[in-house]
């Protein structure tokens, strides 16, 4: 029981670190395209680690499966949205960042 708590805690903290990195990237990166990169890391890996950490604690297999489905939905939505936003930004002539 204790071991499961430690495992879940480690996974949750790793997920939180990715969310922190995503927020920092969104605040610090110079243009839309690089911010998109930071955002998708938080979306995919951050939420993924959180979901696995919570699924370890979950009370039944049904609950764990639902958590996994939420993550899959966010994965699908996140990648489609990243593609749409990047394409739209290029179409509207937003310049790529150059040093």
């Amino acid at each position: 029981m204790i071991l499961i708590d430690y495992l879940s805690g480690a996974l949750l903290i790793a997920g939180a670190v990715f969310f922190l990195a995503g927020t920092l990237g969104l605040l610090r990166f110079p243009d839309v395209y690089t911010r998109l990169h930071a955002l998708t890391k938080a979306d995919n890996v951050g939420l993924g680690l959180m979901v696995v950490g919570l699924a370890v604690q979950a009370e039944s297999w049904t609950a764990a499966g639902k958590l996994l489905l939420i993550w899959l939905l966010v994965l699908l939505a996140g990648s489609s949205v990243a593609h749409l936003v990047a394409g739209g930004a290029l179409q509207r002539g937003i310049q790529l960042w150059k040093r």
Partner: protein
Amino acid sequence: MQTFNLALALFLLLNLGAGMWRVFCGPTAADRMLAAQLFGTTAVAVVLLLAQAYGNPALRDVALVFALLAAVTAVAFVRRAWPDQEAGHDSD
């Protein structure tokens, strides 16, 4: 474990607060929308943590709705609400 989950949820909320700065400062509409997307994902994580902390499985359905709404919002923004001219005041 409950205290730990609540503390993590609070930490993610603070992240959200920091992200508000990007919503206010832009510079392009797309940047604001990306911040809103991050809010959507973080809100999903917060609600899932609360569902576990308070032992309330109904909150997982709330998280599912959040994820769905975030996706629909972003697609609606790109296809309908994104102004065509904004290269002119993109100065960051």
